[in-house]
């Protein structure tokens, strides 16, 4: 091989190596966070992520799904760095099992339960329709796997209606499905999350009863920093962002509550 | 009379025929591939819908002007095709019973045993229909068609998918059918040898038109047809075994009395038996005078009747009449040069020579 050709090949190799290493190291400034978020919080998170990116320059990659599924995936090594769960048990369990940074879990939102009908004027402000109103089906999320379903059962028991209404209960897989049962009219009533009814710009219509929190156990939705994100400053920054006033105000607009300061 | 008036547009031409066929015997529809013979048969069966009229005697199966169209399953006919089309999920017996069970008892004129005997399929009855050879399957298919006691038997090149040996095996059965049953048969073929053996009536088709129709011997004796039969050109004669020569194993077949006979090889038929004889045009030669010292075994006195062009510019066809009444036609294929040399002209007396070897009964 000629001397000139050899020199050309060496130069090309040098340029390629430089380019690759430059790409790999990335800039110290703009990082990326991989977030797994429970379906019911996907809407608010999208808005929060926009503000977060504008302020810090970090990008957020969001995966939406069911908390239970995320748990299984994280155990199997999924690359998520932050988990925004629909309950508080899953983040605690992950921390306990060493898959999340201990002590990093906190409640980012409190879920509010509502009894809803797609028809206006059906559900009154006291929820008396449960005893008086004629209806054939009451949709709730599966209490075994959805905290809102568990809460719905607690409400019915608190009101002493569990036995009377048991034959009319239709169990949905998630509150999303419970919502679908009600919105299609197949179930006249259903226990859903308030956040599903208050989507900004798309009010759900119909009529609802905001269930007093005293009737059911708190639906605490916890966030946690996962092991994969422990070294990523952007991940911790996102979790910190969730505690800021603007973020909390946004969360409230979407129909969630906040944990009282002393936990 | 079987009345067929059919019009059916096809890819390359329009089928347009008006045929009146006899209600007895075998009518052959002959022509090159794609000339419309199968379409005619399918239209008669009702499997395809042509415009026009189909009637068997007084029974009208289709008449567009009267808005009559009888569906296939209500026409008492039988249809046999090249590929036998036996039902694979039934045994031979099952196939035979299929049509029989669907023929009302009052209409049954052909017994199962008769059909089985006619086609010689008794040893096959218990066999699965998928295990039969081509020839056996075809015979079963014909028997299956017969047990429905049809008033018309349609056969679409039933021997085309068989080799020469199987064909030779089945042809006698078909000849027997014609003799034993009083059912008209319409037989489609592109093999003139089969037609010559089986047909009584012949329709020549080309590009969807009937170019000639009539009794077999008459049509084959024509030399004016634009469509040439090629190497197969030649007449078919009905003869009687007049004499048998045991020492030379030859038989004389009289086509018009004992004085007008042709010697052929003896094929075992007894005296007095009627036989059908094919004389190909290429095996017929003409001379001015009776020859001696020639190996050609047959010489008959005759008269030139007509001459006509043949396919190739070197050749021409000559029709001569032989026999005491000049009634028996023979066709010879000659070169123009020879015809010119002999100065052949209609009305001229000639001697007609036919090699014994060439004759097949």
């Amino acid at each position: 091989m000629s001397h000139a050709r050899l020199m050309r090949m060496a130069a090309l190799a040098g340029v390629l190596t430089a380019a690759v290493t430059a790409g790999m190291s990335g800039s110290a400034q703009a990082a990326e966070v991989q977030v797994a978020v429970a379906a019911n919080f996907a809407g608010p998170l999208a808005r929060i992520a926009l503000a977060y990116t504008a302020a810090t320059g970090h990008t957020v990659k969001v995966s939406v799904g069911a908390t239970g599924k995320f748990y299984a995936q994280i155990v199997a090594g999924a690359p998520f760095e932050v988990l925004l769960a629909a309950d508080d048990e899953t983040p605690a369990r992950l921390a306990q099992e060493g898959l999340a940074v201990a002590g990093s879990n906190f409640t980012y939102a409190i879920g509010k339960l509502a009894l809803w009908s797609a028809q206006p004027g059906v559900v009154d402000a006291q929820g008396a329709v449960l005893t008086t109103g004629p209806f054939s089906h009451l949709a709730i999320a599966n209490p075994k796997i959805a905290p809102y379903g568990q809460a719905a059962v607690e409400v019915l028991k608190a009101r002493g209606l569990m036995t009377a209404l048991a034959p009319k209960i239709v169990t949905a897989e998630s509150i999303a499905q419970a919502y679908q049962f009600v919105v299609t009219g197949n179930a006249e009533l259903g226990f859903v999350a308030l956040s599903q009814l208050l989507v900004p710009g798309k009010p759900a219509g119909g009529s609802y009863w905001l269930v007093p929190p005293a009737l059911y156990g708190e639906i605490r939705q916890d966030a946690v920093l996962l092991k994969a994100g422990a070294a990523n400053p952007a991940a911790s920054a996102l979790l910190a962002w969730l505690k800021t006033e603007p973020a909390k105000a946004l969360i409230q607009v979407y129909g969630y509550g906040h944990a009282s300061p002393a936990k | 009379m079987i009345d067929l008036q059919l019009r059916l547009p096809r890819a390359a031409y329009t089928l347009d025929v008006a045929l009146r066929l006899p209600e007895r015997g075998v009518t052959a529809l002959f022509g090159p591939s794609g000339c419309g013979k199968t379409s005619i048969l399918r239209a008669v069966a009702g499997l395809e819908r042509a415009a026009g009229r189909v009637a068997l005697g007084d029974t009208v199966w289709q008449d567009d002007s009267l808005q009559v169209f009888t569906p296939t399953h209500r026409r008492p006919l039988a249809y046999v095709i090249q590929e036998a089309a036996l039902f694979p999920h039934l045994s031979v017996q099952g196939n035979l019973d299929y049509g029989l069970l669907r023929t009302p008892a009052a209409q049954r004129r052909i017994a199962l045993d008769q059909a089985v005997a006619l086609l010689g399929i008794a040893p096959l009855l218990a066999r699965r229909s998928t295990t039969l050879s081509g020839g056996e399957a075809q015979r079963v298919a014909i028997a299956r068609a017969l047990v429905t006691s049809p008033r018309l038997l349609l056969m679409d090149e039933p021997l085309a998918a068989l080799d020469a040996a199987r064909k030779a095996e089945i042809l006698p059965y078909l000849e027997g059918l014609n003799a034993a049953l009083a059912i008209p048969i319409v037989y489609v073929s592109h093999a003139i040898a089969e037609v010559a053996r089986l047909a009584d009536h012949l329709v020549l088709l080309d590009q969807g038109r009937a170019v000639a129709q009539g009794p077999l011997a008459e049509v084959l004796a024509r030399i004016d047809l634009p469509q040439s039969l090629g190497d197969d050109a030649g007449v078919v004669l009905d003869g009687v075994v007049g004499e048998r020569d045991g020492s030379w194993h030859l038989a004389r077949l009289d086509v018009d009395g004992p004085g007008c006979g042709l010697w052929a090889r003896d094929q075992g038929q007894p005296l007095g038996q009627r036989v059908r004889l094919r004389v190909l045009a290429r095996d017929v030669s003409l001379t001015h005078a009776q020859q001696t010292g020639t190996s050609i075994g047959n010489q008959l006195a005759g008269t030139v009747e007509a001459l006509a062009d043949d396919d190739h510019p070197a050749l021409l066809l000559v029709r001569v009449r032989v026999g005491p009444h000049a009634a028996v036609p023979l066709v010879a294929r000659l070169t123009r040069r020879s015809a010119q040399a002999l100065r052949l002209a209609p009305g001229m007396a000639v001697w007609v020579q036919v090699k014994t070897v060439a004759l097949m009964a």
Partner: protein
Amino acid sequence: MTADEWTAVRLTAALAASATALLLLLGTPLAWALARSRSVWKPLGSALVALPLVLPPTVLGFYLLLLMGPQGPVGQFTQALGLGRLPFTFGGLVVASVLYSLPFVVQPLQQAFEAIPERLLEAAATLRAGPWDCFFSVALPLARPGLVTATVLGFAHTVGEFGVVLMIGGNIPGVTRVLSVALYDHVEASEFAAAHRLAAAMVVFALVVLVTLYAVNRPARDRALGSAAPR
């Protein structure tokens, strides 16, 4: 196995049996019509039958929920007939099962019918068999392998499906809580022991039925069209 689990088994068996029977009853003439059709609409008809294959089960279930609901055309129809509404009932499950398993039954049948040479059907007609007669005496026996495939696939698909069942059924114990749904719930709730039990029950149930189907139909393979199977 608890009493609830046996109930789920019973429901699953009932659903699979009724859905498969209905599918064969409706699917066979449909497959025959599609196989024999030469109309320009044939591709559209075949595509419509195949449509349930394209949609994800939960999506399909959602649209069925809409159609069968009080505002949907099917829901209004059933209500007008005095039958109430189909969601959350066993009948609703059967209807939904028939819909989403339709292509699994119609397609093998249609192919089996299309494989029958035309000349055999024409031969039957010339032997005095009218259209119904021809269908039952020639077409159906010759399509038997396709019939077996269709039955197996329809049955298996109905037992295994849960997305649509979940949407339409509402997971009501004793009414619409079939094995697939119960199994899914156990897995979601991390009740793995119960999940293993139910999974085993499903597999055993399906195996028993399928083995029986195949065993009963073995002789049919020898009679199949053009089969060269050793006797």
